[in-house]
């Protein structure tokens, strides 16, 4: 009885177009935000921030970015890690080469440069589609990997650079809690922007291209323009995520953290979470990020210490099986499960 929209009449198109037209959803969102901003800091430990929450939030941001491109615009990309690397290294170079630059600005400019690179590697999307394009984006991934390892200028001739202190507008973000709040704020803000984009003209153009590109062109959508915009926005999100990963999570730069496995990891998040859903990206990120941690914790809790190699192999097996299991159970991901759950709740206690 709690989740009902009965009696909530929409009297204007504005109310009907709202992001969460149903009152209960709005209340739920506010509750989640209160928990994230106030509740979590009251209970979380040092490890929860640095080991779980901060990396999860950053990867969720990358997943939102990839979902804009793959889930909304239908262009499969395996180059996410590469675009994250561009953001990270661009921000790093801005910080060391531009005196007194604001770090927040450097992070977002890093995203901007990543967007430009994304546009460049998105150019083939006009001519090739589907898996051909996916493989082509691997070219971006491997080329960028190589670039940041081999061309020493990008890493300022230092193999492992440490991040400068995170001081923005005179406020220092040094403790895990402060860093968590910093990342959380950015992620919430960018998730909101992404949600706005996909429910407006831009999002509809992307989805039109995804669903049927020929028909999209015939209603007046410029295909290349639309696809490149998706590449740009997606790479911007990934670039910001990469910069945050280096500045806030690792506190250092290492090219290997953005290799092809990162790309697959983020793609898993998007698929398991649900293609074409912002909420799904976040849920998927939580799930994919949590599994390995849980797998590592379980044997220790039962007092069965296992070797690291075996643990890694078992993790691969369990992870692989879970992926397959979830794809079979619900190919459209958590976002769809969530929707079905809401529908059921609306009808409860009457089945169907």
């Amino acid at each position, binding site marked *: 009885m709690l989740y009902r929209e009965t009696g909530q009449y929409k009297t204007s198109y504005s109310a009907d177009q709202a992001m969460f037209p149903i009152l209960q959803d709005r209340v739920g969102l506010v509750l989640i935000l209160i928990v994230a901003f106030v509740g979590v800091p009251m209970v979380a430990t040092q490890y929860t921030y640095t080991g779980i929450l901060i990396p999860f939030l950053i990867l969720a941001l990358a997943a939102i970015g990839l979902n804009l491109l793959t889930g909304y615009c239908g262009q499969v990309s395996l180059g996410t890690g590469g675009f994250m690397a561009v953001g990270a290294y661009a921000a790093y170079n801005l910080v060391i080469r531009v005196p007194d630059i604001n770090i927040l600005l450097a992070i977002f400019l890093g995203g901007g440069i990543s967007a430009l690179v994304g546009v460049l590697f998105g150019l083939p999307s006009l001519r090739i589609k589907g898996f051909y394009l996916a493989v082509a984006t691997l070219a971006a991934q491997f080329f960028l990997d190589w670039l940041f390892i081999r061309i020493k200028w990008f890493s300022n001739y230092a193999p492992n650079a440490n991040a400068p202190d995170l001081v923005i507008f005179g406020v220092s973000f040094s403790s895990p809690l402060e860093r968590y709040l910093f990342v959380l704020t950015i992620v919430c803000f960018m998730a909101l922007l992404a949600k706005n984009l996909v429910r407006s003209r831009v999002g*509809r153009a992307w989805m039109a291209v995804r*669903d049927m590109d020929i*028909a999209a062109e*015939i209603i007046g959508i410029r295909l290349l323009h639309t696809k490149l915009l998706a590449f740009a926005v997606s790479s911007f999100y990934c670039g910001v995520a990469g910069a945050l990963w280096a500045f806030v999570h690792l506190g250092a730069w290492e090219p290997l953290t953005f290799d092809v496995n990162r790309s697959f990891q983020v793609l898993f998040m998007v698929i398991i979470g649900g293609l074409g859903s912002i909420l799904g990206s976040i849920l998927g990120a939580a799930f994919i990020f949590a599994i390995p941690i849980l797998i590592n914790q379980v044997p220790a809790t039962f007092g069965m210490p296992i070797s690291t190699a075996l643990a890694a192999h078992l993790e691969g097996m369990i992870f692989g099986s879970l992926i397959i299991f979830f794809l079979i159970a619900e190919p459209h991901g958590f976002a769809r499960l969530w929707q079905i759950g809401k529908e059921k709740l609306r009808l409860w206690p009457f089945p169907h």
Partner: protein
Amino acid sequence: MTSSGRVIGDTLLKIENITLSFGGVRALSDVSFDVRKGEIRAIIGPNGAGKSSMLNCINGFYHPQKGQITYKGTVRQQMRPHEAAAQGIARTFQNIALFKGMSTLDNIMSGRLLKMKRGFFWQALYWGPAEREELEHREAVEKIIDFLEIQAIRKMPVGKLPYGLQKRVELGRALAAEPDLLLLDEPMAGMNVEEKEDMCRFILDVNDQFGTTIALIEHDMGVVMDLSDRVVVLEYGQKIADGTPDEVRSNQKVIDAYLGVPH
């Protein structure tokens, strides 16, 4: 002036000597006809006569090797479909080409993409002018939804709708662009009698209320003869007849094409 009192104006679209081939196959050879402002023009012919190819040429999807197309008084150079759309040409497809992952409302809203002007950053903020613009267009789309009597399926994903309704939504998307020239590729294919009657009513109303010029392909002869002002008949990529429904009906070549003649 026609009997119903509608105004048929000057030539809107003029097709001259269009020839289109794929490799060695000729889809259209030397076809000429015109469409006048405000009329309903039908293109008929047996399967494989080149009707859909003709529409594809008009909205810039195919580029004919020879001939020229004059639209609104200017000769058109090679253009992409989105440029044709920008000039006010909208269409529907023989096999429904809706955006399956989107709702009815979003599909029709997407028809108004070209009319929405607010930039990317306004959209990201969804605030002020961007929101106002969105609502303005929502209102226009709601009028189309009312017109086509599809209020109940507004929020449903179109992939789940029955065939007849999908056709209706597709018409809605084309109408949302407020086109000057509307191309309909077999709008009534696969429909039952009631659905056909509805669709006929919509086509006539669109033409009557909005003054939209319509070029349509249709197989149901009864429908074609009732709806259209003039009919052009294609067979094997060539024009074999052109005129009012009555003229076409009594044309010997047309009768042969449809009934078959011993060669």
